[in-house]
């Protein structure tokens, strides 16, 4: 099952890559550098999903004290950090030719960096506590508090003056994106979600094996 999910994710990524470079048109204002969007936006949406699952797993653990919920949280947190890192790096690379700078302390960029650091801290905290129940309890508290940053990241471009453009998807108004660009974005979003689900399944299985070895 997990192996099939991995192959499905790999296929979807190839299709997404083909769409990003072969199907989506050259953007009229930014030119081909806009193609970074098909990596940048799916990465951040996948990170949101990952951290929402960390939140769910953390709440589930605190309510039930079952380690299965903790496994869900850690299995989502690791790829969540990876996808947030990709968001920041791809955004920085996109920012240089379009904004003229690799980095600026804009509200969206800063809140995303904080999100990244909070979940890096979450993983470090897990590494510092050996006893499984105590580790799960401490991590769950950070997992719940850290999730508060997700809406701050998403709405930062509305709440503060920002260099980063407002949301064109997941925004209140209908998306103004042209159909081929929207379709390419959707395909890559699906591909990243499948890849995340594959990582989640593998990482959860590793957590289960680690518990059985420790116990």
């Amino acid at each position: 099952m997990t192996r099939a999910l991995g192959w499905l994710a790999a296929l979807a990524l190839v299709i997404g890559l083909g769409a990003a470079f072969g199907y989506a048109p050259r953007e009229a204002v930014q030119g081909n550098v806009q193609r970074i969007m098909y990596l940048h936006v799916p990465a951040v949406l996948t990170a949101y999903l990952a951290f929402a699952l960390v939140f769910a797993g953390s709440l589930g653990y605190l309510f039930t004290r079952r380690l299965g919920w903790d496994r869900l949280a850690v299995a989502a947190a690791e790829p969540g950090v990876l996808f947030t890192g990709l968001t920041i790096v791809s955004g920085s690379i996109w920012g240089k030719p379009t904004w003229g700078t690799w980095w600026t302390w804009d509200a969206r960029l800063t809140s995303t960096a904080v999100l990244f650091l909070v979940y890096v801290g979450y993983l470090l905290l897990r590494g510092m506590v050996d006893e499984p129940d105590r580790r799960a309890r401490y991590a769950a508290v950070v997992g719940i508090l850290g999730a508060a940053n997700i809406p701050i990241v998403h709405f930062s471009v509305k709440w503060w003056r920002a260099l980063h453009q407002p949301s064109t998807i997941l925004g209140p108004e209908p998306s103004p994106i042209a159909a081929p660009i929207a379709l390419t974005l959707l395909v890559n979003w699906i591909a990243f979600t499948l890849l995340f689900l594959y990582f989640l399944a593998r990482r959860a299985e590793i957590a289960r094996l680690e518990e059985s070895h420790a116990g």
Partner: protein
Amino acid sequence: MPDNWGYVFAAYGLAVIALGAYWRRLARRAKSLAGPGGSE
């Protein structure tokens, strides 16, 4: 605006390296925990 293909390939190249490295890392950890002769 010029196309800046170098930036595009840098972004995608780094993503491929990072995702591929994590994929491998998970495979190695699973293999080491499964023990000799273990599979996923």
